[in-house]
């Protein structure tokens, strides 16, 4: 292998490249035009017709005939002309606009800084926020209440847990929903909803600690042999684990109820002797349970992040070799993160199962693991506020788009949004400060931190 660079050096690649640069289409200006035209054609397809059955070319024909392509190509050419020939004017205009907009923005920032800067104000603001969050569901339609509980609430909880694994400990976990499934099925099992009778039937509130322990054990069982693996390998192994959990739920019908799932599960109920309450179809009380758990979990996790555990995670994430040489038991801390994430996911599963009163395997497909991961990264890995907002936004968006674009295309737009976001704002919506620094350092080539915990060839010391 040592001979390779030498071979490469001998081949006159650079010289050839320089020669080729002479051709007109290799010049940046024309290249940009080409790229813009390609983008225009793509956009025409993106915004064009839906395909139909038995006529493969229907949509393509319509898009080209219908003038969609023409419009987009026109826009592309116009953009190109402006960019190439009136660039200075545009730049001046933009900077003037920015200045004008900068004033108010600065005022806002300063005010909010003053507001949140002082301790007293800070707690006040937090209290107000909590109050807003408590009454929030009462101000929206039942539809949004359902979305708030079944989708936003669930995913926010999952994202807070996944953030520990990926944002803090830097491990790429593509099987996070597997623990969500384990939590949901635990709830079904311990409340007697599965075909198999549990030793004792528990109230859903009591199932939560049981589910936490179950997920902890599952997390450790999966993590112990695999956490030594490098980042990408861990990704595929967790993905495989997820697939196996899914397949077991689907195929081991004697225990899980198979594809038809288990219906009529117990919902939450509280009986304090003098006062009892049963959760029913109404989504709002579940929301309050979720909110309570999320607040508690966030407080606990933030303590953890700013303790020796959080520092050890950062160390592992940034440079595993150096962390180990400093005496950090890397495997143990990774396992801890993994288990904490898993149990959070489990709690979310219990709440979800109780709300839906129905579990079946299709609610825990691999796609959801990938979605959860994108929510975390989109919001800003490692930053709790970022993760909360990112998740809430990305879950909300398809629902919001429901009546505004063809519902079939929602995930296409989501995908495009992710790509654009990663190109222009890779640190996420509200990044954590540590992560932002790491990104900047990576960009400058200062640090080897690559946000995956292990860097390529890092084992070599």
């Amino acid at each position: 292998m040592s001979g390779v660079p030498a071979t490469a050096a001998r081949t006159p690649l650079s010289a050839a490249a320089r020669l080729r640069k002479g051709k007109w289409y290799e010049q940046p200006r024309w290249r940009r035009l080409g790229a813009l035209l390609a983008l225009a054609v793509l956009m025409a397809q993106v915004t064009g017709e839906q395909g139909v059955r038995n006529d493969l070319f229907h949509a393509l024909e319509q898009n080209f005939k219908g003038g969609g392509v023409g419009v987009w190509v026109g826009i592309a050419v116009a953009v190109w002309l402006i960019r190439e020939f009136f660039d200075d004017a545009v730049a001046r205009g933009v900077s003037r606009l920015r200045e004008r907009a900068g004033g108010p923005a600065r005022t806002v920032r300063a005010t909010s800084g003053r507001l949140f800067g002082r301790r007293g104000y800070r707690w006040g603001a937090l209290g107000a926020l909590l109050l807003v969050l408590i009454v929030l569901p009462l101000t929206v339609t039942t539809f949004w209440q359902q979305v708030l509980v079944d989708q936003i609430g669930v995913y926010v909880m999952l994202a807070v847990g996944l953030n520990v694994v990926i944002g803090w400990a830097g491990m790429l976990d593509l099987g996070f929903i597997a623990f969500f499934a384990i939590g949901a099925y635990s709830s079904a099992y311990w409340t007697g909803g599965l075909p198999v009778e549990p030793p004792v039937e528990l109230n859903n509130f009591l199932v939560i600690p049981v589910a936490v322990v179950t997920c902890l054990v599952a997390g450790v069982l999966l993590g112990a042999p695999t956490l030594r693996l490098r980042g990408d390998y861990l990704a595929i192994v967790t993905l495989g684990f997820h697939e196996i959990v899914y397949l077991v739920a689907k195929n081991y019908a004697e225990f899980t109820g198979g594809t038809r799932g288990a219906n009529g599960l117990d919902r939450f109920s509280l009986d304090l002797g003098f006062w009892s309450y049963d959760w029913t179809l109404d989504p709002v009380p579940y929301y309050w349970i979720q909110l309570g758990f999320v607040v508690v979990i966030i407080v606990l996790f933030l303590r953890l992040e700013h303790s020796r555990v959080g520092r050890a995670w950062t160390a592992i994430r940034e440079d595993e070799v150096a962390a180990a040489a400093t005496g950090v038991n890397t495997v143990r801390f990774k396992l801890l993160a993994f288990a904490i994430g898993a149990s959070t996911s489990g709690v979310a599963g219990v709440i979800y199962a109780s709300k839906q009163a129905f579990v079946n395997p299709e609610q825990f497909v691999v796609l959801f693991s990938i979605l959860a991961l994108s929510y975390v990264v989109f919001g800003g890995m490692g930053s709790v506020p970022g993760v909360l907002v990112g998740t809430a936004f990305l879950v909300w968006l398809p629902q919001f788009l429901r009546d505004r674009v063809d519902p079939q295309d929602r995930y296409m737009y989501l995908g495009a949004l992710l790509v654009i976001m990663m190109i222009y704002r890779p640190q996420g919506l509200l990044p954590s400060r540590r992560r932002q620094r790491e990104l900047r350092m990576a960009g400058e080539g200062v640090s080897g931190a690559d946000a995956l915990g292990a860097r390529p060839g890092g084992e070599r010391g």
Partner: protein
Amino acid sequence: MSLSDIWDVLVLGVVLGSLYAVIAIGYTLVYGVLQLLNFAHSEVFMSGGFGGVIALTLVEPAAGPTGLQSAGYVLLGMGAGAVLGGAVAFGLEKAAYQPLRRRNAPRLVFLLTAIGASFFLYNLAGKLFGRYPMKMPTMYENKKLFEVFGAGVSVTQLIIVLAGVLMLLTVDLVVNRTKLGSGIRAVAQDPEAAALMGVDIDKVVSRTFVLGGLMGGVAGFLFGTNLQVDYTMGFLPGITAFAAAVLGGIGNVRGAMLGGLTLGVVESFTVEIWGDAWRYVGAFAVLVLVLMFRPTGLLGERVGRTA
């Protein structure tokens, strides 16, 4: 299981494994040069399937084609699959990954981009061509050709294995014998050194993507011939092929071939013994076991980073 059963199951496994191997090449090549888990490669594969369907729908294969016609159709389908696969891979690299590469973005950002691109691409394909499965137009009469120890081999199966072997040999030659190959290896080993020595990294990376895309596209066409084509067809084979690449030692071209074949055969036997429902359990169990004892995969990570 009788002996002829075993051969039967083995043939099925090898056919599926060849497809996995060819797809895995795409993952492994890209991983070699970028250390990137190119999640969107499954969509490159899907494009290949659509490429085949589009080309063959345009020419409308004659009913009861002669042998020569059949061969022509198959080659056309493979060519169209390769072209569309390569084009999508190229576009993907230029539009999504190159801006990140310029900024030296962390790998997780790449991964998320890849996931986003994958969502975008398969939904776009669904939108353009309909979200329905479609059959590859009939190119030949798919009859049993010959037997290997009592196990029948059909035309499709033979084409898949032959094409697979041919492509794997080609890639191996390209990587080990050509200028592009030495560029790929140099970049894989040490991008900075490679750049210093005059390797045009952008070009090498983009050509690596295209090379992987060509392979993936052909695999998509072959897969579509064996099953059918639809906009979500990339997901499962993509994941399995990625597992195959890891199993063989990611970044290692020969490892990807070995890993693909291994997983294909393991799947086939798992299905035979425990049923279709448990297909992936066997495959992933093997993956985890191998990684536990050989953390760098069966053949280790070869293309670039030798320890």
